């Protein structure tokens, strides 16, 4: 079987397991909604300034909610020694990792797509001005979170305090990606076209994704196998 086919199988397996139990998605989604609610106490939610910080708010929510999904990604394989079985199977480590990345990307995007309209309604922000560019930013930003997060999910799997360690390590690493995504989202929500400064941020975001995808694919075999 080809490499991509293996990745696809792993992704489908993860998504199927998640859809049947819904434990990570439910936790992540309710957590995201709670944070969205809490933000309304931090500042005047109907004020004009909300639009200026909307990108930051959204990506903080996405990053927080993402940590819950990413934590489960490899931890799910711990019971019954599933991870050992996966590593021993003919699936290459890189394909296993890529498959899990794809599954996490899908789950994160699903949570984000629910949060966006809720955010729009609660904070009186129109988010459909630049729908497709916004989706592109969402995809690239979430891929960055998924790539780094899945890698660290694998890295921290046998650690004490795993749930705590993952966000503490991942958020500082994600700063460039989050910053680019925040700038882009704020700009697009304000109705700016995807041009000028925004294309530079888009390039930075894509560059971050490429660099860390390559680095993770190069190192994941050592992390999983030995």
């Amino acid at each position, binding site marked *: 079987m080809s490499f991509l086919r293996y990745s696809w199988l792993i992704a489908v397996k993860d998504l199927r397991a998640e859809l049947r139990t819904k434990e990570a998605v439910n936790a992540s989604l309710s957590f995201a909604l709670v944070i969205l609610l809490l933000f309304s106490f931090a500042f005047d939610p109907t004020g004009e300034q909300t639009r200026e910080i909307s990108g930051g708010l959204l990506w903080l929510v996405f990053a927080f909610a993402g940590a819950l999904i990413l934590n489960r990604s490899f931890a799910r394989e711990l019971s019954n020694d599933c991870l050992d079985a996966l590593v021993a199977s003919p699936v290459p480590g890189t394909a296993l990792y890529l498959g899990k990345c794809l599954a996490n990307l899908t789950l994160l995007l699903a949570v984000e797509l629910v949060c966006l309209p809720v955010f729009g309604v609660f904070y009186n922000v129109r988010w459909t001005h630049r729908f497709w560019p916004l989706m592109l930013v969402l995809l690239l930003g979430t891929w960055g979170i998924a790539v780094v997060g899945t890698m660290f999910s694998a890295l921290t799997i046998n650690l004490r305090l795993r749930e705590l*360690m993952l966000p*503490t390590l991942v958020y500082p690493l994600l700063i460039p990606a989050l910053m680019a995504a925040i700038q882009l989202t704020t700009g697009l929500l304000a109705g700016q076209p995807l041009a000028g400064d925004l294309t530079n941020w888009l390039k930075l975001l894509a560059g971050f994704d490429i660099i860390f995808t390559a680095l993770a694919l190069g*190192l994941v075999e050592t992390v999983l196998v030995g």
Partner: protein
Amino acid sequence: MRLKLLYAACLIGAWLLLANLAVILLVLPDEAEQGAIYRIIFFHVPAAWSAFLGFLAAAVASVAYLIKRDLRYDAVAVSVTEVGLAFGAVNLVTGMIWGRIIWGIWWTWDARLTSMLVCWLLYAGYLMLRRAVEEPAQRAKVAAVFSIFAFADVPIVWFSIQWWRTQHPQPVMRGSGSMDPAMYKMMFANWAPLLLLFCVLVVIRLRQERIQSEIDALRREAHAR
């Protein structure tokens, strides 16, 4: 013999530092705009260089560990990271003291300050990560991968934050104008004792790591009986 070399390095470092301090405090005049406080730069800047050198060495040692799987490289990586973090802290704290005097504020979210803080937090995370793993080989592997990730991240962080900040007006400006050549030279001259101190600390830390692994081995042997 090794210990004597270490003492000798300490003595040379102390002597160099005293000689430099004499020049810094007695020979060099106050800076025209900043007054006496500018002298902090002779520690501030070399500390940053040393810290970054340490992080570079940590990345190299981490790659070497992943290739050779020799725990000695891991010991090097953790030693230089720890000492690098200490020098990074010196850089941050001296910078804050300078900022309090010149800018009137302890901290500003300027590109350099922010990226140094992010860098410092990343490597503090590295040390935290190490504490969470018991088994030495696994700890070395996990830490090495994280160190490589962190090292790849630092330039991107620096680049992106600088970019972000240049789009905003700076809250405060550094004193413009170039540095006097005598002062400029002093910055490099004072790097020598600091770098020597860096090396001595790393060697001491390496000794500790070696002794620690010996103790661990003995403990395992005792348990096996």
